[in-house]
């Protein structure tokens, strides 16, 4: 046994390097895409363009971080797009009738969390498969957003400048949504890595029965991730309407799929217990850069789709192959 202890330092170093390399593999994909983008179009490196891309990363990234929490528990949340819509129209309505901005923000977040809480209750107390519960919420939420807004976009006075700041403002040269995203990502990283709650999420996602026997409150953990997902969808909705100056009931259509894709590309397993927020951030960046390149290169819309699909597959394929080469015997 004793020789094991001697071996540990080098072995440990190797392992840690391996882990870095694993996350950074995706980082290389991102870097490669950026280099390709810069070669294809010099406009890519234009600071304004970089800011645009970052803003795009932020908008999709925030929801995707919520989904990362959910997917780590082996769940899924299809309702985020609809939550965005409900929060968008209801907050816009409140702004329209002149409720003060801070209250609107609180109310918006509360609506998102409440919808997430319903998801959470359905999955835990109701024992519904997350797919079904959140699919139901997706359909219901869309109907609700349509009903609230009577199908119309809801405008609110531009006057509320504080509110405009949320989606359109800048801070130290970067858009406010980017700062919000960075904050959310940092917080999420911290929670997942340095709090018992974060550990519990991984435990529940890896083996719910073992988690239960280890004294983890499985139900509460699962419930919480849906509330978090709802809250982050609500935050996205607030940024959306601030940016668009209108609350649309069609906001966020298809967002769930994009967010799930970002999370999975980022290396989080749909079977739970594996992955994390860094991958999701990189995944969001990859998505935004792909869309940006294709637009800058002036690829026609239909061809864009073909190329986009191919790049998604190729990026993850590259990652999978590289990881396979670098050991990790199945």
């Amino acid at each position, binding site marked *: 046994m004793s*020789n094991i202890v001697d*071996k540990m330092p080098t*072995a440990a170093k190797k392992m840690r390097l391996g882990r870095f390399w694993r996350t950074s593999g995706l980082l290389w994909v991102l870097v490669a895409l950026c280099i390709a983008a810069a070669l294809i179009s010099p406009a890519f490196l234009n600071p304004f363009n970089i800011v645009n891309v970052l803003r795009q990363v932020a908008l999709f990234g925030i929801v995707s971080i919520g989904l990362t929490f959910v997917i780590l528990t082996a769940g899924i949340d299809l309702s985020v797009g609809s939550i965005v819509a409900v929060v968008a129209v209801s907050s816009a309505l409140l702004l329209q009738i002149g409720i003060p901005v801070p209250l609107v923000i609180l109310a918006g977040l509360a609506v998102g969390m409440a919808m997430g809480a319903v998801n959470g209750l359905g999955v835990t107390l109701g024992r519904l498969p997350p797919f079904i519960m959140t699919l139901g919420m997706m359909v219901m939420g869309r109907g609700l957003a349509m009903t609230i807004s009577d199908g119309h976009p809801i405008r609110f006075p531009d006057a509320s400048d504080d509110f405009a700041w949320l989606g359109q403002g800048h801070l130290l040269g970067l858009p406010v949504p980017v700062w919000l995203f960075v904050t959310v990502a940092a917080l999420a990283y911290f929670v997942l890595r340095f709090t018992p709650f974060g*550990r519990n999420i*991984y435990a529940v996602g*890896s083996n719910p029965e073992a988690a*239960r026997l*280890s004294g983890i409150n499985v139900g509460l953990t699962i419930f919480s991730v849906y509330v978090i997902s709802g809250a982050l969808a609500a935050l996205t909705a607030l940024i959306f309407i601030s940016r668009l100056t209108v609350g649309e009931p069609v906001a966020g259509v298809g967002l769930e799929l994009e967010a799930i894709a970002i999370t999975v590309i980022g290396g989080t*397993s749909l079977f739970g217990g594996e992955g994390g927020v860094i991958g999701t951030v990189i995944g969001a960046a990859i998505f935004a850069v792909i869309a940006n390149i294709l637009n800058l290169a002036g690829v026609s819309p239909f061809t864009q789709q073909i190329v986009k699909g191919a790049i998604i597959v190729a990026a993850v394929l590259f990652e999978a192959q590289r990881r396979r080469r670098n*050991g990790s015997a199945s």
Partner: protein
Amino acid sequence: MTQTKAGAVEPILRMRRIGKQFPGVVALAGVDLDVRPGEVHGLVGENGAGKSTLMKILSGAYQADTGEIQVDGETIAKPNPLGMIGRGVAVIYQEMMQARHLTVAENLFLGRLPRTGLGTVDWQSAVRQSAEVMTRLGFAVDPRARLDTLSVAQRQMVEIAKALSRDARLVILDEPSAVLGGSELDKLFAVIRRLSAAGVALIYISHRLHEVFAVCDVVTVLRDGSVVGTRPVADIDAATIIRMMVGRQLSDVFPERNRQPGDTVLSARGLTRPGVLRDIDIDVRAGEILGVCGMAGSGRTELLRALVGADAAACRSYRLNGTEGRPANPRAAIARGILLLPEDRKTEGCFLPQSVAFNITVSRLSVLMQRGMLNEARERDVVGQLVRQLGIRTPEAGTRISNLSGGNQQKCMLARSLNADCAILLIDEPTRGVDVGAKREIYQLLAMLADRQHTAIIIVSSELPEILGLCDRVVVMRDGMVAARFDHDEATEELIVAAAVGEPAAKAA
């Protein structure tokens, strides 16, 4: 089998210079192994010595980095599972390889279901043949039951039946006995002897040396991925094997017993779960180790689960550390200082995608908290200490637990329950798959917990020597009831077995 065969007959299997590396670990460093027809070849070694890896290479589950495999003198170019099955190699893997959604019959015939003339699955014959196999082996398992409704022991029986029901010429059994009790083991040995008499070669892996002496002809000892030696069993004794395994002499496996049990800390009356547990009274005292024995399926596991609220159950009264009422769930139980280490580490214990450290600290993260966050340096200290104490063989604390050998995973589970710092520990099969050296460590640790920290410990075990060597009192279960109770001094293997199977002699208690 006598050794007349050895040497005279050509080996059916020849493994040469087999080497295998995993990230951070050399699992095998040039292993040679010969097995002859009709021979029962024991394979022993410490946890992580490379036994399972060697067998997985043989079955085609893993690819070796170096070396070659010959079956019937013919070198196999690229071994894969299907090819090896075709050459008559059948394996019982240590980590059960079963499809839990499927029935027993289907698992038995996984990949080779009987077909009708039309090429469709012949369900009738599948069920009939499964029942035949089970009856022949003397195992009590319904072929139509879904696998995830079976107890671990029953699942192991299915696994054994699966390998033995193939017309194999080389059968590998990787720790088949770890969860089996006495009577199932006897049946297994009977089958092994029958197969060996019919000329089948067997490789038998176990950490229970007496089994090796009971059934093997030849034994090969592995240490750190290399062969230390291969000897006929007749020429060797247990002490020598142990010395070859661990590289030193091991004295007394079981610790001295000089305990002063204190007050009763857990006392349950009339514990009942319909169909499984009937009117069970149980007490444990602080600083006492209580053993629970019984045949497979006698309800031992269910008893422990009921005590911590893992399953629904009823009871007349339940007193724990002076508070009344049965905990509603394991979380409540842990909050009141009682923790269960479950029987099946794979489905109920391990967080397989997570690290060794994660798995060990999960049940008590509070000690790692510092200024509102988990302190990873402190975690490394805590884990490092337990890893050393239990001799867990892992490249580092951050290694995924799924990359550890079975025995080392089990040690991690023990480390978790030791780390939980509970006043009452319920441990189901504590040394399942653990090597002799580590067993001794574990016994010492458990005894130390009971002696010094006055922890009350209940152990369920299928290994009678363990119960007899470690426990202050013994409860024997049969059909969900308590069949007998013994104090340490009066308990003997014969009495316990008699009580477990329900022979009149034991009824008195």
